[in-house]
């Protein structure tokens, strides 16, 4: 099968203006020359997607994956390089893109179809399918501004998959919506695959890549780091995340550095407070156990732990040295326990990385990068990242006090 998307040597430069001079006056005064910084969002990207293939794009925020999708769909023009496509693309670049809040669901379906280049007559023939898929029959004549974000996502996805595109481009939109709908979307994506359609998918969910992609590409700071099998790409993605998190700390536990295996991490486990459930509630304790093995005595040992969120932000980076713990000589097998008294996080899956190295970080014995997950489930409706200890007090003018 031939390529349906060809990306050859594509670079994209953005100009970041120090001051946005949008007025004519400023343009005239500065004679069109405004101070700006150049920023390369993409550098020399080569990627081919064959017909019927599903390719995942992995990358942290700002890695250029969305810019690449925008170039593929024609929204942005690459600074250099060439992109070609065969067939019609239906793109879902953002939740509710192309939806107008004042229009009803019905009107938005036609609007969206038209934006994708389909005629009203064609949308008429698939209208019922779209509505059935989106599961919002009852609200189809309500203004979209009254929809929940999940309903938005469902409607947008339903249009994109039902207009019968040759190429489907999806940017993280599957992350929204409830679980059953996400499953349904994945089912539909798999049906697309069986029909020999091509899919380009941006995500930072490693599981998604493993589950549905034939190949995956990893972007890091605008460079294409890896293109390969999903498993390989996911590992490479974690490497880039880890590198990023550890850079400022200058830990040197970066992947790629050869490990001596003088101390080996044999196993690790996340011990949840309630063994019956595989997750934490906010501010519950958790224990991370690391089992090591040192065939011969090793004198200079530091155990390190890093916790990242899925976007690649380092939430915790510490080691026994920083904590003032002298590990002493390590010999034979043993166990290190990192006990976190409280995990002040709200919803999310967090990636745990463990490492063993010498004091000056010169010698790296072993590391286990982002193979363990810490899942926090937030039962309340508070949103955000951190579970702040929060108390509210309300004092009324009558002097009566209520505390919550």
């Amino acid at each position: 099968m031939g390529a349906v998307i060809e990306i050859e040597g594509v670079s994209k430069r953005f100009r970041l203006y120090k001051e946005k001079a949008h007025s004519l006056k400023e343009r005239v005064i500065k004679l069109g020359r405004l101070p700006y910084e150049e920023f390369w969002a993409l550098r020399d990207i080569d990627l081919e997607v064959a017909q019927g293939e599903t390719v995942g794009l992995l990358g942290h925020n700002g890695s250029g994956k969305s810019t690449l999708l925008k170039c593929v769909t024609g929204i942005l023009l690459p600074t250099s390089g060439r992109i070609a496509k065969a067939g019609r693309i239906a793109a879902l670049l953002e939740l509710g893109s192309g939806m107008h809040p004042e229009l009803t669901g019905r009107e938005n379906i036609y609007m969206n179809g038209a934006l994708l280049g389909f005629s009203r007559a064609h949308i008429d023939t698939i209208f019922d399918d779209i509505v059935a898929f989106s599961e919002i029959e009852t609200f189809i004549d309500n203004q979209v501004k009254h929809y929940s974000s999940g309903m938005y996502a469902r409607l947008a996805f339903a249009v994109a998959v039902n207009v019968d595109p040759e190429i489907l481009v999806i940017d993280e939109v599957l992350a929204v919506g409830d679980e059953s709908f996400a499953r349904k979307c994945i089912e539909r994506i798999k049906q697309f695959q069986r029909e020999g359609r091509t899919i380009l998918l941006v995500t930072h969910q490693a599981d998604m890549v493993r589950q549905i992609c034939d190949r995956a590409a990893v972007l890091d700071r605008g460079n294409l780091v890896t293109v390969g099998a999903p498993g390989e790409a996911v590992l490479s993605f974690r490497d880039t995340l880890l590198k990023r998190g550890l850079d400022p700390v200058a830990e040197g536990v970066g992947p790629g550095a050869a490990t001596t295996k003088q101390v080996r991490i044999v196993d690790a486990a996340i011990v949840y407070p309630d063994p019956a459930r595989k997750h934490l509630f906010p501010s519950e304790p958790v224990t991370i156990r690391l089992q090591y093995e040192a065939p011969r005595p090793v004198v200079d040992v530091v155990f390190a732990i890093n916790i990242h969120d899925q976007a690649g932000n380092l939430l915790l980076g510490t080691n026994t040295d920083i904590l003032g713990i002298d590990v002493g000589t390590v010999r034979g097998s043993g166990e290190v326990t990192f006990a976190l008294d409280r995990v002040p996080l709200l919803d999310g899956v967090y990636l745990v990385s463990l490492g063993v190295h010498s004091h000056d970080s010169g010698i790296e014995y072993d590391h286990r990068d982002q193979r363990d997950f810490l899942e926090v489930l937030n039962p309340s409706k508070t949103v955000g990242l951190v579970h702040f200890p929060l108390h509210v007090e309300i004092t009324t003018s009558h002097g009566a006090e209520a505390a919550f």
Partner: protein
Amino acid sequence: MASISGSIDTPQRPLSEVSTRPNPLQRAALVWRYRELLVSLVRKELKIKYKNSALGFVWSLLNPALYLVVFYIVFQVFLKNGIPYFAIFLLAGLLPWNLYGVALGAATASITSNASLVTKVWFPREILPLAAIGAGLVHFALQTLVLFAALLLFRYPPAWSYLPLIPLALFTLVLLLAAFSVGLAAINVYARDTQHLLELALLAWFWMTPIVYPYRQVADRVGSLFLLNPLTPIVITFQRAIYNKTDVVSRPKGGGPPSVIHVLPPHADWLWYTRNLGIVIVISSLMLLGALAIFGRLEDNFAEEI
């Protein structure tokens, strides 16, 4: 669960370049291919504009109605310009002007005001200014109903032989509008005060066009120079067909001697109006090609600059 109708067993489609921008003619072809989107966007503009208003489309009639009342009072009552059936004369010129001014204003802001679409969905961007013109045309059609009503009310006969020129004049107007709209919409992304500058320019342009005063009152002094304003041939064609008088006799209310007011060129025939419109059509077409070229150059960075 819904099922997908077609499947892809058909031979692969040829590759097409995404990373090169089409030339003006290809652009025009793309716009044609996306004509359904144009209709959808016009529909959207109209729906959103009147969605939460009680009077709905009546609003679009109030604007010319107010103009009519104000100009009637100023020019007939206070300045006593003496033009009979002044309301009809005024409407004949005001309706095309309104289409021009309102649509051009909306079109110029059309790309910046649809930023969320431009940064997230690909489609030929020229559609946005064109949709503003489309919405303008719908309003124009509604306002024409007011004119019809006025003609019926006064039992005023238009010039039947000149009526076929109205579609041509309207076509000319839309072509001119398209040229300016496409160009200014693109420029406005980079220099946002284009739209404010335009407001001032339109104000001056209005008074430079024979709408509230007859063509000959100025043309008799400056000659055909007046035709350099591309709106002049359009507006006077409307006036010729609807107002249907080249000279009128004004009889002052106080009973003074009647005087003749020259409104339109007396010897100008069908051919004269057509020729003038033809010139504007040729110029507008060239300008439109130029505007599409400018648009094409500037469009590359729309999604970044917005």
